[in-house]
């Protein structure tokens, strides 16, 4: 009888250990499945639409104002994405198209159809290294935290370095410093009272700014059993044409056209044929 009780006790202990192992792997991360849509317009600061309060240095305030004038005249200013260049970080988190978040123990994948906006947040404990090729999305290391002590992770803290340019915060052309030494820190978590609302508190540290600048992006979850992920391709039917430093457009009837009043046509010195 004692032997039987002992065996039962061992069985119970092993069973608990096995369940805990499963629970540890499967449920220690928050449920971030589903389709996440941005809340509001894809503008960096949705309160300060003209960015008059953006903490830009005087030098970059002047660059921004020149960019605004250029855009008003028909140009693209300092927004580089019209040729389908990646928006890069942190602009990717404007979430132009719906976002999917796939959590695995070593990486959290953020998948967004827009241009080249998918990113990896490495959560495998790797250290920072200098041997990283700069990229538009940068290199991101993160760690999960259990901030409420309930045994489950609820917050993903991430830092992104090694960015390249040109980048801007959004389509207004609000610029980053050309030195591309931007560092981005994020705190990503679900709303405690609404698990279908996700926050990303994004802090940008950049030499075009007078201080770190934090905004909070929100995303609303759509729980669809079989979501359809629409393919969004900037390069398909993109009518913007960049020739050297000038930008043009292709008209609906397939001909080159100016984007600014009195814009010169492109220099055709390399063509032998008679011009039209």
């Amino acid at each position, binding site marked *: 009888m004692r032997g039987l009780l002992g065996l039962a006790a061992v069985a119970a202990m092993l069973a608990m250990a096995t369940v805990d192992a499963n629970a540890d792997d499967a449920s220690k991360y928050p449920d971030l499945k589903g389709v996440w849509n941005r809340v509001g317009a894809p503008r960096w600061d949705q309160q300060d639409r003209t960015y008059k309060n953006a903490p830009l240095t005087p030098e970059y305030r002047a660059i921004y104002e020149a960019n605004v004038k250029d855009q008003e005249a028909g140009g693209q200013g300092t927004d580089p994405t019209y040729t389908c260049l990646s928006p890069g970080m942190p602009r990717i988190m404007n979430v132009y198209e719906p976002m999917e978040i*796939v959590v695995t123990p070593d990486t959290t994948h953020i998948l967004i159809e827009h241009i080249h906006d998918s990113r990896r947040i490495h959560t495998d404990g790797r250290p920072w290294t200098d041997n990283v090729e700069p990229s538009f999305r940068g290199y991101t290391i993160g760690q999960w935290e259990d901030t409420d002590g309930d045994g489950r992770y609820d917050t993903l803290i991430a830092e992104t370095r090694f960015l390249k340019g040109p980048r801007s915060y959004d389509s207004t052309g609000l610029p980053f410093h050309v030195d591309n030494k931007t560092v981005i820190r994020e705190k990503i978590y679900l709303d405690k009272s609404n698990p279908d609302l996700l926050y990303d508190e994004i802090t940008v540290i950049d030499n075009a700014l007078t201080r770190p600048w934090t905004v909070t992006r929100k995303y609303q979850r759509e729980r669809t059993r079989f979501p359809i992920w*629409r393919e969004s391709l900037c*390069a398909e039917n993109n009518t913007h044409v960049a*020739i050297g430093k000038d930008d043009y457009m292709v008209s609906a009837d397939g001909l080159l056209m100016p984007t600014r009043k009195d814009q010169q046509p492109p220099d*055709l010195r390399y063509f032998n*044929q008679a011009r039209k």
Partner: protein
Amino acid sequence: MLLQRSLIASVLAALIGVATAAAADDSKYPEWRGQWRRPPGVGIQWDPTKPLGPAQQAPLTPEYQKVFEASIADQRAGGQGGDPTFTCIPPGMPRAMTVVFPMDIIILPEATYIIIEYSNQVRRIYTDGRDWPKEAEPSFLGYSIGKWVDEDGDGKYDVLEVETRGMKGPRSFDASGLPVHTDNATVVKERIYLDKANRDLLIDNVTTIDNALTRPWTVTKKYVRDRNPIWFEYNCTENNRHVQIGKDNYYVSADGFLMPVRKDQAPPDLKYFKQGQN
């Protein structure tokens, strides 16, 4: 005594059951993490066992053989032929599985994600038992439904069978412009599995059924794994010097001027410009 033996048996069975359940949940899928890339020396032609171009011996219909030959002639003259990707539209399926730049595979019970750096393509292979949708917007990658198979009966899945429908164009099999039919009624079937002798070799038997072909065409793609990857970013549109204006393609020279791609190519029509032409 009989009761004791019976109880012991029950406890042992319960233990085994728990262990089995744990093993089934955690390990029933194969381990495909890491970075997968084309093996060294393998090019970007569709059938990797044959050279690019006519040597692919693609089973094209007579009509599409002519389309292919015209593509090759145009490419020889400086054009892009039937390869539409020079403007950075994605290659789509099945060409995505050439994996020009490395891929990442994430397996979840409801879907297998294949993330390919070339053109930032994210394939979702749905394994949640869904039916084909009645309506789905065609896409370059198409819509993929898969199912896992335990071929060797060892209790673990080892083969992912996939079917992809709902593609759009223009697409080609590879950079030679080897064409698919303009009706885009392509169906792609795949069997994806690890090599039994080398767990760092992934095999994809890709069968394409398309109206440009006289029969289903199967090629075998292979990928080797790097378990400590460095992921680099590839942006097609960065420094892309190809310019398309209407139906014509041009190039931007190193010094930033528009230039022809063919001998005696006419410049673009500048009728919308007011200023004096150059």
